[in-house]
């Protein structure tokens, strides 16, 4: 997209996008300040003493957002200047640090830890002022990073624009839900009804709902038409059965699945796990025995369901999509957001199967192989001998762990759910957990498959 542009031309191109972008951000902050002021939600955070005069200036939220708006206006002025040296951009040292932190282990561990921190300190993070600050920082990060050629190349690709929107929209809606849940939890602690129960006047399907839907439909259609005109879908060369684009990416909504395929056999990641996801979602109403939390946001009353859902959705689905879109480059290697997509990047990824590790590295023997020309039972026997450790581990994981869970951490769940329902839930949970476990094993100890029986296309 930016191939063949000189640096100056590239900066020109980015500047023509960036200065309106910063103006929009300034307007956004200005409108927020105006809204807070007009609705009387002005809060003084602290008083700034003016040196010499003995007076102090109250710094309220309105003042802060006005200052932010002015800052964005300044950024817009610098960006519109189209002078390379004036261009506001991410410092190179930061870019390096972010590139370093975008390795697979750091990325997955970081997102997990980040989500845990967000969850534990949710009361702090949902405060409108804090949330608005984070929102501004996210958008500022996007703007500052745009001036990097490699980052721009990835972000501005028409295929990837939905991912940027997805990240922003999801942050907003997750905040909204958590914010209301925190308020509701507080209210219910005080014995008050949740917010949703205060305003539960019923409205009619016609016209209230149908009108809303109609308006949404028209607005979305207009938006899609605008989008299709502004960012046309990229057309590539004619398909060829012997030539695969490098990297070869699925549509964005399947990138989580494609990432899963890196760690599992195609049968497993392409068929068994997706089907289990669907079946598991269908099973939720039958597994859920918690009658609380219907029709209002709450976290406290449905902690387990909330955590499982947010882990499965945000961590196992969304972050994998973001990873696949932004961090996977040629040859499906990992690339930092500011890193050049070099098709010849060498990564040491020599993977071993558990059986190879056990027989070769641990015992120093060669893998047990059936003598040539032996019959099927003998072959199967030798395969079983070769893979016994992996088979034992996997069976132990799925058969021995649920009873242990029932006796320890999930004792109350087992008592409430009964044997069959608990076993179903435990196995679904374990299957879900198997993905991060395999990811970590792949990255940390270069494990390929626990059970590797390529003779029968059975790998796990």
């Amino acid at each position, binding site marked *: 997209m930016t191939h063949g542009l000189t640096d100056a031309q590239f900066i020109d191109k980015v500047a023509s996008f960036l200065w309106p972008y910063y103006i929009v951000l300034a307007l956004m902050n200005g409108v927020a300040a105006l809204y807070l002021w007009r609705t009387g939600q002005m809060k003084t955070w602290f008083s700034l003493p003016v040196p010499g005069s003995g007076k102090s200036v109250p710094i309220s939220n309105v003042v802060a957002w006005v200052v932010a708006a002015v800052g964005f206006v300044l950024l817009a002025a610098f960006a519109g200047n189209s002078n390379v040296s004036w261009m506001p951009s991410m410092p190179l040292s930061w870019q390096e640090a972010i590139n370093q932190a975008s390795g697979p282990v750091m990325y997955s561990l970081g997102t997990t830890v980040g989500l845990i921190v967000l969850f534990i300190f949710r009361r702090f993070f949902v405060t409108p002022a804090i949330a608005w600050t984070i929102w501004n920082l996210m958008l500022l990060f996007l703007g500052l990073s745009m001036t990097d050629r490699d980052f721009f190349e990835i972000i501005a690709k028409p295929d990837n624009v939905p991912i940027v929107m997805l990240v922003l929209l999801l942050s907003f809606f997750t905040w909204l839900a958590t914010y209301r849940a925190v308020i509701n939890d507080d209210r219910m602690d005080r014995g008050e009804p949740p917010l949703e129960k205060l305003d539960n006047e019923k*409205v*009619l399907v016609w016209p209230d709902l149908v009108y809303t839907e109609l308006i949404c439909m028209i607005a979305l259609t207009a938006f899609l038409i605008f989008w299709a005109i502004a960012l046309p879908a990229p057309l590539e060369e004619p398909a*060829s*059965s*012997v*030539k*695969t*684009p*490098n*990297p*070869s990416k699925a549509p964005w909504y399947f990138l989580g699945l*494609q990432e899963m*395929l*890196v*760690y*599992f*056999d*195609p049968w497993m990641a*392409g068929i068994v796990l997706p089907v289990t996801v669907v079946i598991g979602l269908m099973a939720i109403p039958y597994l859920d025995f918690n009658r609380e939390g219907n029709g209002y946001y709450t976290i406290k009353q449905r902690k387990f369901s909330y955590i499982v859902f947010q882990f499965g959705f945000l961590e196992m689905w969304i972050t994998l999509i973001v990873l696949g879109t932004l961090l996977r480059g*040629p*040859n*499906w*290697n990992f690339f930092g957001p500011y890193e050049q997509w070099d*098709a*010849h990047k*060498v990564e040491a*990824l*020599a*993977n071993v199967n558990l059986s190879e590790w056990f027989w070769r590295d641990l015992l120093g023997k060669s893998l047990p*192989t059936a003598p*040539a020309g032996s019959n099927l039972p003998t072959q199967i026997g030798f395969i079983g001998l070769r893979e016994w450790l992996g088979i034992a581990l996997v069976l132990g994981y799925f058969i021995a762990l649920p009873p242990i869970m029932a006796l320890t951490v999930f004792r109350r769940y087992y008592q409430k759910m009964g044997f069959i329902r608990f076993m179903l839930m435990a196995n679904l949970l374990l299957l879900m957990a198997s993905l991060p476990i395999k990811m970590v094993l792949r990255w940390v100890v270069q494990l*390929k*498959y626990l059970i*590797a029986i*390529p*003779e029968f*296309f059975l*790998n796990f």
Partner: protein
Amino acid sequence: MADKKKMSVADMLAAARKTDSEGDSAPAKDAAEEVASTPPADAKPAAKSSPAKSVPKPGSPGRPSVADMLAAARAGKSADAGSVEKAPAKKAAPKAKPAAKAEKKTSKPATTPERDTASILAAARKPERSGPMSKAEAAAKTAVPTAARAKPAIVAPPMPVKPDYAKPKKARAKAAPIEERRTMMKVGFWAVGIVTAVWGGAVTAFMFPNVLRELPSKFKVGPPDAFPPGQVQTKFKAQYGVWVVNTEYRGKQELFALKSVCTHLGCTPSWLEAEQKFKCPCHGSGFYIDGINFEGPAPRPLERCAISVASDGQVEIDKNITYQEEMGQWSDPTCFISV
């Protein structure tokens, strides 16, 4: 919504009753006026609440149904309107309740009785009728004893002659012979059959597109000495989907053909000369120069094709026959040429 000042059903009925009763005969007026004067009194609270509430409750005084009114009007000449009104009110009102959920349903009985009063009366005169009856019928039934005594002279007007379209089909369609329908059916089935056959044929033809789908599976790639040791010949990949490799495998120098299909999910890997490996762009599987998988998710090595030296001294590759390492097939002498 509910707070808008619309005319509620009760209001509308009341208004309708008022105009009706004014044009009525004098004896009916007493009863009708009594009826008409009451609804506005409780119509106001009803207008504020939801429409469903404007329906009279069973037995509530002063809120007779339309059927009651009619009955009262009919019985008007024999006086004692009050007693007539009370009696049917109890019978008719419970029936009105389920129907009263929607506005339309409540307004329906208000119009129908006016149309066929005569027929209702006629029907009511019959001793018994099974099946459900309308409100008006129910009212008329109870009202009949007094009404019949007071007005024995009412005779139902003659029913109009039935139009052609209302006559039973037998009489009308007798002219059409049965044979014509059979012919019609035959033609129809044949047409459907022919269309289906044509469609089926088209779909079948679609399955065999007018292109050569498969690359030639058996082909010659030149003399064996055109492939120097340690080299991967990639020029046959685009045309035939194979790499011709001359390398050392298990201590022996071999010339063999590797199929350019990833054993993970079937993408086409590319040969990276600098890294000396085949690398798949879809999920990052990597293979050594001899086709053995070593990185990424590919569970087994690349597949070999049958290779031989033809009678003219050229290397001939047959893609139809493949050899899998994990099945121990690479020791088969037809899958490599020793050099």
